[in-house]
């Protein structure tokens, strides 16, 4: 008796759901070109016909998008849609993955990111990155922030370095909490503080663009709120591209939102428009929670 009931339930429940989802996706065709306003006049960064491959597998299909000066662009989409891959190809973090290959044209201030003249190390000093999991170095808070400036020789004297550290920590909203414990390990901070430390570390070398790969996914709501406030402040000085799983977050922090689906950039629009009147069926399905 019991056995029977259990098998009945398991046969019915999940598979049915999965099937209907799949059918839904297959029904909807991808648009020829990205819908909305992917391209801008006088952009900070522009990406044209970008394809990314892992070995034989193509992860990104023909993406065209611009990012404006001091703009916050959010990239959303279901898991595995390639938004992180796309983000990591902007500062050539994908170079470290041996099987990864990027084609198309990506430019920063009109300079080709993938040209032979562009040094990846110099590029990453201009395009900073904050990662999903807070990853402070197992060093002191001070050394964490000072690491980048020291690498690039941005400070010639100790006092200068102190100043950079203070400004960076202040901008990252961590100065008040950390100023008395600069000599303590960064790994001893709470999760949210660690993530702000990572942001401070990224902005210590004054990058032009900051890439954020789901920066709040490992944080609690209060820490998340702080980071979001921070993003709003940082957007006055920096261009920010943020990948997020939370649509609310995208709605709160970004000016424009890009919706990725299975490696294709489906729609880019003003954030408000994406969340109130999405143009494409897939975008609508995603933001209304029919898959995610």
């Amino acid at each position: 008796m019991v056995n029977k009931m259990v098998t009945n339930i398991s046969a019915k429940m999940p598979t049915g759901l999965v099937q209907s989802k799949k059918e839904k996706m297959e029904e909807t065709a991808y648009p020829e070109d990205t819908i909305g306003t992917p391209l801008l006049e006088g952009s900070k960064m522009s990406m044209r016909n970008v394809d990314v491959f892992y070995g034989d597998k193509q992860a990104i299909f023909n993406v065209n998008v611009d990012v404006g000066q001091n703009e916050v662009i959010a990239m959303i989409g279901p898991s595995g849609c390639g938004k992180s891959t796309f983000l990591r190809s902007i500062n050539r973090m994908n170079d470290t993955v041996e099987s990864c290959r990027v084609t198309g044209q990506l430019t920063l201030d009109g300079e080709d990111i993938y040209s032979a003249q562009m040094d990846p190390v110099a590029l990453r000093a201009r395009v900073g990155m904050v990662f999903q999991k807070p990853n402070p170095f197992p060093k002191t808070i001070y050394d964490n922030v000072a690491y980048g400036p020291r690498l690039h020789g941005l400070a010639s004297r100790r006092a200068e370095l102190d100043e950079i550290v203070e400004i960076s920590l202040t901008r990252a909203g961590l100065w008040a909490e950390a100023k008395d414990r600069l000599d303590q390990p960064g790994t001893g901070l709470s999760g949210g503080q660690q993530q702000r430390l990572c942001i401070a570390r990224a902005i210590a070398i004054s990058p032009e663009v900051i890439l954020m790969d789901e920066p709040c996914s490992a944080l609690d709501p209060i820490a998340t709120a702080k980071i979001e406030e921070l993003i709003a402040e940082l957007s006055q000085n920096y261009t920010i591209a943020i990948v997020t799983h939370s649509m609310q977050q995208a709605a709160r922090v970004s000016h424009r939102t890009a919706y990725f689906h299975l490696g294709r950039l489906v729609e880019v629009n003003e954030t408000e428009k994406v969340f109130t009147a999405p143009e494409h069926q897939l975008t609508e399905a995603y933001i209304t929670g029919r898959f995610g």
Partner: protein
Amino acid sequence: MADSNLSHAERIQSSLAKRYRAEKHFKFYGAAAIAFGLLCVVLLFTDIISKGYKAFGQTYIQLEVTYDASTLGITDVNDSQQIVLADFHGVVKTALKSRFVDVSGRKAKRDLYGLISHGAGYTLRDRLVANPKLLNQTETLWLVADDDIDTYYKSIDSDAGAFVGRMSEQRQGWVDQLAQSDDVKMRLNRNFFTQGDSREPELAGIRGAAMGSLFTLIITIALSFPIGVAAAVYLEEFAPQNRWTDLIEVNINNLAAVPSIIFGLLGLAIFINFFHVPRSVPVVGGLVLTLMTLPTIIISSRAAIKAVPPSIRDAAIGVGASPMQVVLHHVLPLAMPGMLTGAIIGMAQALGETAPLLMIGMVAFIVDIPGGFTDPSTVLPVQIFLWADSPERAFMEKTSAAIMVLLAFLIFMNTLAVILRKRLERRW
């Protein structure tokens, strides 16, 4: 189903007891395995220590010695030529003769003179050279007894009775006589710690082998650690993943399993026969042991590098560190404790290695204590092998004592490794 009338909870309940029983059994087997291991270690240590501790003591005989110029055959103490040729053992013989006046006959006399080690002559010489005024004077001295006497005297109180061996009854009588007048006693065996090897057990010491081991290991660590770490860093961080690197990886793993004597043959063929490095020296020993320990160090270093979280690499690359800076600033410091563990395991292996060193002539009988990397020398395990092979009874306890020194060396190295690791380890 037989028990289909049981409820879910009841079935879980009945399986629980079985699961806990299995866990209990498993715990017991684990504890038993550890207990067995500990028992073996305790047995080993008791056996070695009970056999070897006596080697740290040495029997001395008190004699009244006269530095008689005519017996010695010298006129001027400051003439080194005369001192070298002087018959100091003759002085000892005279002293023994005057202690046991009633001994006669060639054989008996030879037995009598054999009470004191030949090494006693060197003690007298050193004293006379240090203080020339002693010439023609008399002093009472404790002199090193011969190894037979030593073995006999050490076992005199044992439950199994004294070990007699080649000792004649007459000699036993003399020793007993000396013992009665308190002219025999045990003293700390300083020779054991300060001398090199000798054919005379009472004069043989471990210092030559210990220094040989030290020099050999210095060469080994100085070569194998940097080379091994560099190879591991290159293979993990920079080398492309292709058929060549796969081939290299497979071969490194194979090398780790190659019998060590093969490395000895390799060293003989390459270092000695081709490059003409002198044989029996710590340099060539260190080179051979480097070949042997490299695979161990490379494998453990690669494992340590692999264990560095990729998020740290990402973080460093993200702020614009070059690949070399990522390695130097982050990967190496974080992997260092693991690499050190591998290096110490390799070093411990190298310290205990005998076979490859036999092939390159480090098995030679060497009396002088090596003073550098190119002096002929032997190493601790080879010394143990040599002494275990010697017929004299007294070498048995020396063998055990040498094993104790080797173990002490090992424990010291491992302690050092633990301390280093503790200091370098970082909390996450």
